[in-house]
């Protein structure tokens, strides 16, 4: 077959073929392999793979770019941050005074300072940031329906799934929402088999365990083994049925689930108590801090894509919980809140994570992404805080072959608009796939069988070595 026909053949693997090949139950197991096989010529020119894994630290609520990494110290006072700058490990680069530990690792971080889109509301902006795709309208309660684009990790699971015992995509510890569940956290039209393994449990909890991997208290592994043996006996009675592809598909899932329950490797991967106390302390005894540590542990064990959500809610009014949405409502004040909560947590996790990865020799093969759904208004509002600003904000990328200390794109003197090298969320997605060695123009099919490229944009290749 020549190239174009191979493509057509890959595109034509329809449901009937899938049924013929594997039966409904096998879909999840066969599909990625099939696509891999048929996609091979397409990715022949894919970028050289650097990042084996991605850790995506999603900053829900929208951190202020102009008070953290893109400070406009020469801007007029009504724009200028009220925090002092401090110098960093990159000569001439300054960041916020409340990020002193982060300042020491800025030479390990690449910045993109011109991320921009047009979504002003949390859910529509969050969806854009989580998928790289803008919704049709800027909808404050954008509904999480199957016509919307899947999460990055789900796409990775579809086009380049893990071949080890571990899931491709794990996310925790929150399902983020603002009034309604924010779209972009799951597999959407790619199908539930590409949903993340989602952990709703708090990794900072003394009894943290993965609920899927924990058996009911009265069911031991031994008892489960007995049940499985009985199940096999009953299945073997209807012999023809048992040999069918559909039954074998079901059986493969039972094998996988039970082997995960029995697997020391899998249990260990999620068993954060195995980490030394000092390291656990270093990450901070917070849900987010221990979440970052768990992310590193999972990536080390072979999980390909980990999303850690900073908070469940957009927050912004509390010094003890919630996200970055610091409008200054109800007499709360951004400049008072951030140094009490968001900035210290960030400063105790991001640099610790990067150093931890580095020490283990994993930084080069792990891409760490840190950004939210938008930045915040360059002009300080009446409540001495800042509102939503999607027109220009900063994303941090570290490891995975990126050039530490590099800065791509330049915002204007207020941090309001890109001055040079604007980057869309689609570009950001393409950049992430590029780092993973995945051709960002690979197409996936939606429910109407429409081919859609996994990223609508071009990779920012300048930040890679």
């Amino acid at each position, binding site marked *: 077959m020549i190239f*174009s026909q191979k493509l057509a053949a890959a595109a*034509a693997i329809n449901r*009937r073929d899938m049924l013929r090949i594997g039966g409904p139950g096998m879909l999840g197991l066969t599909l990625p392999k099939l696509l891999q096989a048929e996609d091979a*010529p397409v990715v022949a020119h894919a970028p050289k793979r650097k990042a084996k894994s991605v850790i995506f630290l999603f900053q829900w609520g929208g951190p202020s770019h102009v008070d953290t990494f893109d400070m406009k110290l020469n801007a007029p006072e009504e724009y200028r941050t009220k925090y002092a700058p401090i110098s960093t490990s990159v000569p001439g680069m300054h960041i916020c005074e409340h990020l002193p530990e982060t300042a020491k690792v800025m030479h390990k971080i690449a910045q993109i300072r011109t991320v921009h889109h047009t979504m002003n509301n949390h859910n529509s902006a969050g969806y854009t940031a989580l998928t790289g795709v803008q919704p049709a309208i800027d909808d404050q309660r954008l*509904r999480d329906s199957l016509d919307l684009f899947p999460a990055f990790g789900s796409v990775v699971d579809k086009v380049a799934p893990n071949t080890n015992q571990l899931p491709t995509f794990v996310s925790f510890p929150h399902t983020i929402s603002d009034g309604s569940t924010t779209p972009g956290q799951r597999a959407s039209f790619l199908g539930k088999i590409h949903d993340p393994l989602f952990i709703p449990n708090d990794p900072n909890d003394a009894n943290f365990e993965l609920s899927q991997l924990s058996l009911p208290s009265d069911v031991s592994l031994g008892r489960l083994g007995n049940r499985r043996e009985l199940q096999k006996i009953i299945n073997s009675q209807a012999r*023809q049925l048992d040999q069918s592809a559909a039954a074998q598909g079901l059986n493969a899932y039972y094998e996988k689930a039970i082997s995960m329950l029995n697997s020391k490797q899998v249990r260990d991967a999620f068993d954060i108590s195995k980490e030394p106390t000092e390291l656990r302390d270093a990450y901070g005894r917070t849900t987010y801090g221990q979440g970052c540590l768990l992310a590193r542990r999972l990536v080390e064990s072979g999980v390909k894509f980990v999303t850690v959500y900073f908070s469940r809610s957009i927050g912004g009014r509390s010094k003890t919980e919630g996200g970055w949405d610091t409008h200054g409502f109800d007499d709360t004040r951004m400049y008072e809140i951030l140094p009490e909560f968001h900035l210290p947590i960030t400063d105790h996790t991001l640099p610790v994570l990067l150093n931890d990865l580095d020490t283990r020799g994993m930084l080069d093969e792990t891409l760490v992404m840190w950004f939210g759904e938008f930045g915040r208004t360059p002009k300080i509002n009446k409540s001495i805080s800042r509102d939503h600003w999607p027109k220009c904000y900063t994303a941090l990328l570290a490891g995975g072959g990126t050039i530490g200390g590099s800065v791509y794109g330049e915002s204007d003197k207020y941090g309001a608009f890109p001055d040079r090298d604007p980057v869309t969320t689609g570009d950001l997605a393409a950049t992430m796939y590029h780092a993973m060695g995945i051709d960002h123009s690979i197409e996936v099919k939606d429910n109407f069988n429409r081919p859609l490229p996994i990223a609508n944009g071009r990779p920012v290749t300048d930040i890679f070595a």
Partner: protein
Amino acid sequence: MHHTNFPGLAALVLTSACIANLSRADDASPSFRNDVMAVLSKSGCNQGTCHGNANGKGGLKLSLRGQNPESDYITLSRESAARRVTPLSPADSLLLQKPSMQIPHEGGRRFPPGSSEYKILQNWIANGLPKDDDTSAIVVSLKVTPSQKTLHFPENSVSLLATATFSDGSTRDVTSLTVFGSSATFVSITDTGVATADQPGLTTIVARYLNQQVPVRLEFVPERPDFEFKTPKATNFIDEAVFAQLKRLKTNPADVCDDSTFLRRVYLDLTGLLPTIEQAKAFIESPEPNKRSKLIDTLLASEEFNDFQTLRWADLLRVEEKTLDATGVEVYHNWIRTSVAEDKPLNTFVAELIAARGSTYKVPPTNFFRALRTPEERSEAAAQVFLGIRLQCAKCHNHPFDRWTQDDYYAWSNFFARVDYEIVENKRRDKSDKHEFSGEQIVKISEKGDVKNPTTNEIAGLRFLGSGNVNAPEDKTGGDPSPDRLEQLATWISDPENDRFSTTQANRIWAQLMGQGIVDPIDDFRSTNPPSNPELLNALRDEFVSHNFSTRHLIRVIMNSTTYQLSSTPNTTNAHNNGTFARTELRRLTAEQTLDAIAQLLNVSAEFGGHKSGTKAVQLKGVRNGGFRYSKPEIGDQFLTLFGKPDRLQTCECERTNETTLAQTFEMVSGELISQLLATSGNRIDQCLATDQSDTDTINQLFWAALSRSPNAQEIDALVKHVNQQEDKRDAFEDIVWTLLNSNEFLLRR
């Protein structure tokens, strides 16, 4: 010669030079639209993964699949300082050097220097990049011969010939310029149109030349020299059509399934539930020869059938609380259920949905439009659900795999342009949520308003899909004539002569029972996705229409056929039964079926938010979208979501998923709901233990509840042994129930 884009003198010199150098056959310049564009498609240049990508590739962006020759002409001849084409030295053109890999090309070599593709591009460049003008012939049709063929192995290869007819009446062999693709992976097809199958089976080849697409249906019949068609008993026209195809394909249908399998199948298909122990035993033990037909009739007349059939339509019609509100869900669901119960003709049912207006509380079908807030949503939904047409692509560009143009899209959408809402009251809890409506609305038709085609920026016409003529030629600035456009649409759609509607609905009912449409996916009718058995589909449609669009009648006819009653066990000839219905395909129970079956086995009920205890999953009216913000989903709701119950935000069967996932398996193995129902005090295990019956009797009872059969000797042995080994008898029976509900026989509809 056209020299419109080239300085006259240079072109003149160049052209004469070329003519001197080229053989006579190459003399005529290729047409940009008919030859050059075809080469770009044939070589894959304008695919979505290559230069047809929305962002282009390597700095070159072509229109997707060549849908816009005008812009591609400018791109290739003018952009990038025209460096892509070098008429003075054609061989130096990037347009030739890149695809022939004389210089590096990320997309690899598309054709070698000197190939026919290369020569067409070279010749076009050398001729001065002639552009087609208004008088140039354009392609009007494509014919591929053979248009269908049955081949008998070892013959496994066929040559296809593509002939295009142009607007000037001329015809031409365009095989070498035609893109061929196969719907099946076991068939490969060469550049020159030779299709070869590795194994027997059915496939559709789609041949594409410019904007023309033609399907070619190929049947590859296995050799099987000793094949003998075991003519099964044909019960009705369905069997005649299915068996005729199977005989041609040298495939024997499976045996008819046994009573126990039939019983479960019919109960699950008609009611969504398992038979009770009593129902199962009564049927199995009955000696009546026509007990299968009788059971079908009994269940078709049951309240449970009404519940289950209503669930299907509630999925498609977006019966959910956030937009319709609780009252809306209640009245709309009740209306659907009443329509199902009285077996309202399906065309009447749909006509009532389309023509409905008035209060969403008092005229329930108005909720169809309440759920669909824009003309585009309404028109896409109506096309998909009622006519089996996925129109979505044509919103932004002409449909790449179908006949629909953007103009068709907006002329169809315009029927729905004047639907308007009088919001009597809106007590939404979340002021920021524009999707939430709580309170009565009046659906009405406004006096004016039309959709515009954004490409032309003109008011769209008014045209039924697939009907060539613009209907209702009313003055667009005035009001609609009487009857108004939606009433006209309702009449058109429900007309028994409207084959699209009746065929789509007959195919949907078939797929509901057989697990796969004759056209599949069932909402994707197009010439390039033909039916696997056209005679069967036509016969079903005729049966449906001649019996006044009675859903019950068609279900009864299908279920009484031998084809429906075939076993899932393959024989030596039908293992690869792809769309031929030679045996029953296994499929996992749906979310509701699974949960109801588990609850039934344990004789307990699962909890659902907003419903009284004891409600079955198949009886749930809405999905409580948005409601979960205010109260946590109950354990039953969580289970249903995990197993694929749709949110009802799309008007598509595809929103319900039946795929198995690891998370579902964890739920079945050790999840909260299973553990809770196993532990519930007073469940079937406790009920059994409360009697003084033997362990064997209890095992027997659990088997009948779960699998509608007695355990065999090996099962009894193993399970009795297990019970004896356990200290706690309840634990032992919990294990047995766990085993039953995790068995293939329980989880699969067969």
